[in-house]
């Protein structure tokens, strides 16, 4: 577990900043909700009249005037996209970063198997994602209680579980990609997260692109869909978990055989 704790310590500042920014933005969104409720009815009408735009962000599926609906949209914007970028950066840098920073030679000439390196780094990535989501969830719940809203524990859990799974999928897929890279990957990571986000918007806009929902985790993790449907849609979650498993499998397979760059 030495490497696991080393990874957590090394990224502690990065984790703290991302967690603080996402939690703060979400908290601000929650705190301003009471002032916005008066305008919500009008906004609801406005969104329903915006056709494709509302559909693209699933705002036509929820009642914007009620806190869960409002929270789902805000959560999607802040934790959905922000969390996806964070997970992408962690995943793509996990293995490739050692070669980029030329520390792979130091690490891998110690008596630690490559499989153990992959496992400890993977668990560290997942632990960081879990910590961010737990803190953000706690801050959100306290924020909601502070403004006098009742928190549906089951619904909130499903929303946060959705985003945790989304980030896990992105991180695992890019973790697999990371095993094949010898440096960098930052652009690839952020680009992948953004493309997956865009896939969901495309799938919401036109039925011709509906198949993209099977490729992007934003389809099952979208808070608005979870609020509207009452839960995570399994038909999109299962392929997502398979993609994540494939990423992890590829990392274990390739990194154990990989020639480490000097």
């Amino acid at each position, binding site marked *: 577990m030495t490497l696991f704790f*080393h990874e957590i310590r*090394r990224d502690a500042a990065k984790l703290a900043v991302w967690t603080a920014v996402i939690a703060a933005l979400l908290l601000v969104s929650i705190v301003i909700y009471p002032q916005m409720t008066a305008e919500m009815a009008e906004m609801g009408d406005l969104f329903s009249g915006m056709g494709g735009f509302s559909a693209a962000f699933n705002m036509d599926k929820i009642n914007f005037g009620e806190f869960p609906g409002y929270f789902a949209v805000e959560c999607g914007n802040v934790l959905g996209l922000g969390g996806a970028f964070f997970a992408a950066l962690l995943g793509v840098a996990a293995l490739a970063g050692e070669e980029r*920073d030329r520390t792979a*030679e*130091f690490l*891998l*000439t110690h*008596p*630690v198997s490559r499989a153990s390196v992959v496992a400890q780094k993977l668990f560290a990535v997942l632990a960081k994602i879990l910590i961010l989501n737990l803190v953000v969830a706690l801050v959100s719940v306290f924020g909601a209680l502070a403004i006098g809203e009742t928190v549906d524990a089951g619904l909130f859990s499903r929303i946060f579980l959705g985003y945790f799974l989304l980030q896990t999928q992105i991180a695992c897929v890019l973790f697999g990609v990371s095993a094949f890279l010898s440096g960098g990957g930052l652009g690839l990571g952020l680009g992948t997260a953004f493309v997956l986000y865009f896939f969901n918007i495309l799938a919401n806009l036109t039925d011709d692109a509906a198949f993209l929902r099977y490729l992007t985790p934003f389809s099952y993790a979208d808070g608005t869909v979870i609020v509207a449907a009452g839960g995570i849609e399994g038909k999109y979650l299962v392929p997502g978990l398979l993609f994540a498993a494939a990423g992890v499998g590829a990392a274990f397979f390739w990194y154990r055989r990989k020639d480490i760059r000097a």
Partner: protein
Amino acid sequence: MKAIETKGLTKYYGRTRGIEELDLSVEEGEIFGFIGPNGAGKSTTIRILLGLIRKTRGEARVLGMDAEKEKEAILREVGYLPAEAAFYAGMRVGEALDFSARLRKKDCREEARRLCERLSLDLTRKVGELSLGNRKKVGIVAALQHKPRLYILDEPTSGLDPLVQREFFSLLRERSEEGATVFLSSHVLSEIGRYCRRAGILRDGKLIRQDFVDKLTGTGAKRVTLHGASAPPALPGIRDVRQNGASLSFLYSGRADALVAALAGLSFDDITLTDPDIEDVFLHYYEKEGS
């Protein structure tokens, strides 16, 4: 048991040659020099021995263990100093050394402190702020602190000042006297000549000679230095002619009487005849194999 043994060890990076058919043999307890210029394949060989890269074919055994199949067991017994030591930037020297020790599941604090004192290395400095030489010192301590059976050192003295170099070799000698094996890769030929018992010469990925350093230098050639001469005698067996101010020197392999007869026709003030140093030997093998 051999500390390092390779048979037909070959590595290609795609279609690019790394090393070819390398038969290397390092005895336990000796200081072995691994000589070759940049790109000859020294680091490739070391990286295979440490399991950082996979061989294309052949066999590599370290301390009697297979370099690929028993990698973790090998790495427990090896201290490795890379040519360019890199550490996690945010760490302090003490933290980096402690991390290395914990990866080995060993408490090396006492030995690390002792080594840092001898090498004048401050444990509290951040590794990202260290000069090349001080980073190298951290690498040395990380390679030595767990007292391994085998030291694999890749260009260990680059960046070190002469005093630290001397202390470093004194440490290596102590470890060697305690029974450890030292595999020293270098293109600083004088260090190989001074500290190693045996050496291997690598050229274009192939081991062209492996022997005792004494025997390697005993190539039959002599370095002849003529003071006050402007041209060497016209004689077969003369090579590596160097003009240094008023002195002219060359390597000569051949009969002594023929040399004396040829020198009789030349004008010079003084003459010295010496055994070739390891640089001469290196050039000798390079020219011989290259021609």
